[in-house]
């Protein structure tokens, strides 16, 4: 140990000791990340099942799982639901709302920032499943929202049945907005106030300052945040599963829910892994899209 440190200290360029230091993290990546992905890729071409005849013999079935996926109308519905959920709760909801809150809190007094910040953070610090249970009892038939409605003499609405998608989108916005808010708060604090002041002196309106100065300045933050929030939202399972179970019908069946159902309710692990790769692909495509759009 100490010998290595001394060698580095001497600054020998040819020294390959950095390999030793890199090795643990690379090994962990290989074992817990690359290997499972390769395995998943392999299993998606098999009839791997949890029980039944096909659990006894693992058979290579080519692209059958993928053909099945493209023929399955529920997959199309799930992709569509996933996109609605993504755009509604992540791109528009968390991102825009988080930015607005951060923007409105800027230059406000500390007390105000602290109170609002804590309230928004409450959703973020609540564990997902606790969050889901709270929201379930909020939107439930005899839940808080309907109790409020009845106070004003309004008829009760079966939220989780009539507008399930909106319910889970609102749920996810409540749960996740604080993350975007924190990211944007940090970014907005970095916008040099001299620039804004100079713009004000030049007679720019607040709107112009926002569009012409602030947004370009935090562009890369927007992209990074967009990517993080998107990837988080693509994988949301517990919240939806606990609130609606993917129903009624397939109204809130997103890809993770569909994948779970195929793998652990229908016991078709092979098909489930194929769907998980579709999810991975969606994540990659969206990330590339964001990165590309940042460059332009």
């Amino acid at each position, binding site marked *: 140990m100490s010998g290595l440190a001394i060698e580095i200290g001497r600054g020998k360029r040819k020294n390959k000791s950095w390999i030793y230091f890199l090795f643990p993290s690379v090994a962990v990546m290989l074992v817990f990340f690359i290997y499972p992905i390769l395995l998943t890729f392999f299993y998606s071409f098999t009839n791997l099942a949890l029980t039944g005849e096909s659990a006894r013999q693992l058979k290579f079935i080519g692209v059958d799982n993928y053909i099945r996926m493209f023929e399955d109308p529920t997959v199309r519905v799930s992709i569509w639901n996933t996109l609605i959920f993504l755009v509604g709760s992540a791109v528009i909801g968390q991102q825009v709302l988080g930015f607005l809150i951060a923007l409105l809190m800027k230059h406000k007094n500390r007390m105000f920032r602290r109170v609002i910040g804590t309230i928004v953070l409450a959703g973020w610090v609540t564990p997902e499943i606790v969050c889901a249970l709270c929201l379930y009892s909020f939107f439930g038939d005899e839940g808080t929202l309907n109790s409020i409605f009845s106070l004003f003499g309004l008829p009760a609405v079966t939220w989780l049945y009539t507008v399930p998608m909106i319910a889970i989108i609102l749920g996810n916005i409540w749960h996740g907005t604080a993350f975007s808010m924190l990211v944007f708060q940090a970014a907005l604090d970095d916008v040099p106030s001299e620039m804004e002041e100079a713009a004000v002196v030049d007679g720019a309106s607040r709107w112009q300052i926002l569009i012409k100065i602030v947004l370009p300045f935090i562009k890369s933050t927007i992209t990074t945040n967009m990517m993080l929030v998107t990837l988080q939202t693509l994988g949301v399972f517990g919240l939806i599963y606990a609130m609606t179970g993917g129903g*009624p*019908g397939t109204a809130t069946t997103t890809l993770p829910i569909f994948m779970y159902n195929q793998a652990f309710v229908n016991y078709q692990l092979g098909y489930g892994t194929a769907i998980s790769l579709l999810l991975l692909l969606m994540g990659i495509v969206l990330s590339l899209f964001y990165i590309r759009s940042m460059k332009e």
Partner: protein
Amino acid sequence: MANGRRALLFAITTVVCGSILLAGCSDSKSGGTKKTITITYRDDGAGENGTLYKWLKDVAAKYSNDKVEIKQTPIQASEGDYFAKIALALKSKDTAPDIVTEDTFMINSDASAGYLSPLDDRLKDWSDWTNGSFIEAMKKGVTASDGKIYGVPYNTDSRGLWYNKNIFKQVGLPENWVPKTWDEVLDAARTVQQKAGSDVVPIWMNMGKATGEATSMQTYEMLLYGAGERLYDDKSGKWIVKSQGILDALNFVATVNKEKLGPPLSKVLNGQAGNTSSREYLPKGKLAISLDGSWIPGNYLENGAAPWPEYKDVLGFAPMPTSKGQAPGSITLAGGWALSIPKNAQHKDEAWDFIKFALNKENTEKLVIASGNITVRADVAKDPEYTKMPFNEIATDYLKNAEFRPAQDKYPEVSTQIQTMVESVASGTAPDAAAAKYAQDVTRIVGADKTIEK
């Protein structure tokens, strides 16, 4: 100085850890003569108040074999998750228990997967099995498609129409109700709808995906088999994907929902629907007719989930008629649970010995009485202790027309398609459209050469 202290610390740690390790070794050595038999079952969250927990503890205490120790290794999970979890556990020698409780509809699937060991050789030397103590029809439920037996059943159930006699009296329906056709069932529901007020639900059937097997079995299969159709054609070995029976069954569901004879969809399309109807609506007099299983009264016992001492007098249990009253007049589906020995079990002989003891007359009787299930043993069925429980006799009687779910390893998957189909009809999809989608989905699952249209 510092080095010395470090060395001392190191020495102490080594000695302490080493002695712990050694203690571990000697401990396991001294217990080596006693074999531990593990038994896995589903804990629905009741923990030490669970019927199976109490029963196993009691049976294990009475079991006079000092060479073995019975250890409970329950899995706390919902019903659907339980099957996935035991499938994973049974795959490996390291995790497989010695005895596992299996729902009879999963036995064929798990047997085909090679997870269970056949019991035929052991059963033929067990007099209880061969001398007619077990009801013959129940043996069908634990026989897989290869003709071998993979479990010893310990309870079963039948299904029928529970009805609230108070509501029936109030609206002028007979208190001793025996409907002869589906129309009579619907007419009774309509009468309730017109006369009992808007807060009484006329008829409840589980119709959602969330209620899983309850939707498939208590609702759809009761209707399908009552229409004279089956899910699977045993003769040709093919799944029936299109028939008038399927449409008849779906039309019944559609009628109930179209005429608003059923519960609100937001109540029935979630996972709690079964408990809502049996523990809340029925005891509170908010539900007139419920198509459900024979175990419902288990909820109303003193130590049940929703104690309701008056249930004996208020509830009636009518047989579910066939669609037009054709032979055999009424229909029921039977399910139930069995004890199986995994192929990867470590102590198969000891496990078998314990199963024989646990499922003898005296012990099974205790279990079915405590759980509110029906017995699979003919000798228990005649016992006054058992028959004095309300409804046990009639529920057992319905078993004479009992049908089982197909012993096919694709059944669990087909079942989820049934649930999707029933839920979509309940939500307003036309029966023929839902049936067409079912045909398409089942064909994809079992393969086009394994389907048949009627």
